[in-house]
């Protein structure tokens, strides 16, 4: 990634944080504008809707052009191979050009073109290997998986896409599953990927997008370890089915069926504990999902009760436990326990919106809460507005706005207290 792009990303992080502070009334508009001024990001940033629309149209144009040329050139395999590889090259070159331009870097076209470019490349390569090089289907799959891992990894590195980082990780594990002792390799590689990525996720020298890629790789690594260790996956030989040669059941290592239940039970709490200790919510989320999977595995092997009882009781238990945690956090001194709070902080809103967008166009989940206003900071916002105005007039920088515009909302005494 070019140093200039990294600088833009760093500025964008700060500007985004400032917007979140402004949203909850912790700073006023002149202060936010001042921060924007101090951390310039020349890229035009579109909202997710505009980005999705642009990406959709770019994809439609590219696919239509490809189809037009494919039909015009004839339907022979050789022509299609050349066309696929040509389109791949053009898409990837255009992606690089667009990513370098502040006007187009964050419009959605970069992601769409990179996705199509890599898709064309892999499809073209697959056809070349099977049709022209006459490789066996298994060999072709192996080569395509290796190339997918490398190209997606390069795309993640070059353009900072966490999606490609995730795909690259998945391709790596698919490659390993095709080797002998794939399950063991998943355990080892999963642990290594998680460990290496965990060291990068807070590393200041890395670009913000690369830190996000590291977070995705941690989840992929944990997922791989869990998939390899899960007793049901072992019992059903899920990973072995991906291998070139499926080994017979009796080739499973001795003691594997004894250790797997233990691992199935222990990995989720271990991930939860790691998440709680490091206060990383994505790890907590991963731990919650793994816990649910382990409980489903348990229910598969141990029929403790009829399904309806299990569902109703577990649902009620989850709700009661969650409410108890929320209540404990709310009533704790300073409304926090060990650095966790149930109050919506600055960084929450985007994730909540994502949840609501995902949940069937906002019809199945409640709306996000009203942003909290922080009393202590609200007063300070007014003060800092005054200070900003003073500084602005001194520096002859015109800054409009007023702290009185800060929206009123729910009080958050703890946060107010800590600022006094």
């Amino acid at each position: 990634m070019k140093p200039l792009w990294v600088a833009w990303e760093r500025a964008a992080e700060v500007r985004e944080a400032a917007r979140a502070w402004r949203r909850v009334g912790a700073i006023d508009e002149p202060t936010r504008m001042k921060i924007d001024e101090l951390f310039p990001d020349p890229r035009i940033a579109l909202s997710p809707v505009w980005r999705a629309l642009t990406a959709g149209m770019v994809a439609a144009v590219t696919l239509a052009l490809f189809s037009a040329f494919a039909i015009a050139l004839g339907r022979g395999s050789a022509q299609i191979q050349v066309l696929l590889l040509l389109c791949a090259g053009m898409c990837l070159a255009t992606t690089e050009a667009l990513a370098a331009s502040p006007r187009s870097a964050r419009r959605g076209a970069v992601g769409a073109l990179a996705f199509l470019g890599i898709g064309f490349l892999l499809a073209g390569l697959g056809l070349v290997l099977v049709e022209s090089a006459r490789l066996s289907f298994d060999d072709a799959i192996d080569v395509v998986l290796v190339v997918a891992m490398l190209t997606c990894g390069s795309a993640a590195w070059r353009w900072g896409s966490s999606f490609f980082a995730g795909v690259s990780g998945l391709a790596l594990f698919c490659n390993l599953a095709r080797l002998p002792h794939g399950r063991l390799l998943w355990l080892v590689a999963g642990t290594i990927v998680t460990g290496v990525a965990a060291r990068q996720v807070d590393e200041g020298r890395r670009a913000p997008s690369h830190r996000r890629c590291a977070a995705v790789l941690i989840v992929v690594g944990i997922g791989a370890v869990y998939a390899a260790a899960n007793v049901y996956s072992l019992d059903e030989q899920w990973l072995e089915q991906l291998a070139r040669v499926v080994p017979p059941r009796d080739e499973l290592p001795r003691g594997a069926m004894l250790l797997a239940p233990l691992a199935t039970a222990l990995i989720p709490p271990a991930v939860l504990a790691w998440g709680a200790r490091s206060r990383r919510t994505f790890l907590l989320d991963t731990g919650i999902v793994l816990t649910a999977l382990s409980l489903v595995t348990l229910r598969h092997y141990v029929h403790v009760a009829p399904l309806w009882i299990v569902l109703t009781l577990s649902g009620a238990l989850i709700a009661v436990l969650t409410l108890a945690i929320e209540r404990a956090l709310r009533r704790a001194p300073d409304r926090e326990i060990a650095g966790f709070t149930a109050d919506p902080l600055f960084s929450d809103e985007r994730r909540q919106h994502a949840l609501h967008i995902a949940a069937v166009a906002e019809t199945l989940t409640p709306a996000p809460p009203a942003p909290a206003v922080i009393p202590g900071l609200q007063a300070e916002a007014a003060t800092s507005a005054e200070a900003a105005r003073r500084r602005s007039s001194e520096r002859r920088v015109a800054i409009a706005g007023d702290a009185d515009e800060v929206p009123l909302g729910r009080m958050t005494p703890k946060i107010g207290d800590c600022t006094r």
Partner: protein
Amino acid sequence: MNPDVVAAIARLETEHVLSTGQAALFERVARRRLVSVRFEIRTLLYVGILLVTSGVGIVVAEHHRDIGALATAAAIAVATVACLSWVARHDAPFSWGEVESPHVAFDYVLLLGLMLFATELAYVETQFTVLGPRWPHHLLIVAVVYLLAAYRWDSRTVLGLGLSTLAAWRGLSIGLARGALAPRVAGDLRADAIALGALYVIAAALSVGLARKARFEEVFATAGLLLLLGGLVSGVLDERLAWGSWLIALLAVSAGVMWVAFRFARSLYFAAAVAAAYIGLVHLLFRLFPRGSQESIAFLLTALLGAAGLALIVRAHRVMVRR
């Protein structure tokens, strides 16, 4: 930790852009010394409610004979009343504006209560056939209750459920999803979708215009446009109809939606209208240049049309941002 934000906070404090108090809190959050788990709490509550309603659904479907019809109905009724009583005890006074949720579980208990109410009504209908041949009307009752509850307790979730139940009452959920229905039935469903969609869009406009639950606009308009534009697109794609008239109607409605969305800076509606118009025009191209040697021309023109669409999107966004 977000090292970029941590470094920026230090700089902003030094340059007196942020006060010491502000910087202290922001740094605490940026360093992950204070983390919010509100997202996790809400998600878990939602999952809990879904599990409970799934469990109740299985009981009703599989075990109601063992338990007895009256006992089952009574049990669900008790649970419904318990949930809605809790909601009534904790609710805030009614307002046409935004009402803050009084408790983190409020929305979820309300959702559970209303879903149990719907289950109860469906169960009573199947067991005792109260409405007889007009049994689909029980969906209308559920939808009306959802809509009333949405307004009373200011819940966009319940409003969304109400709108989709109303659509289900008109048979839309099945009709438009499956294309293999008889022409007349499909036509009726399409007409219903368009009428209901238009009604929802009008409701969205009224919500904002009259300042009556203005925050419901997004839910009304999104559901309305989905039905309205979806119905028109389905008319264009239907081989048995005069697709030209449907296309003209689609383009006219899409243009209208784009204009309104552009004027009031509503990007989602603009996107929906652009997508619908694009599908309609692509269909026109493939009608003009059918399969065979001319197909590549159709694809080429589709690409050009897409490029024009892109130019329109870029231009519209630029003007919207400038305004």
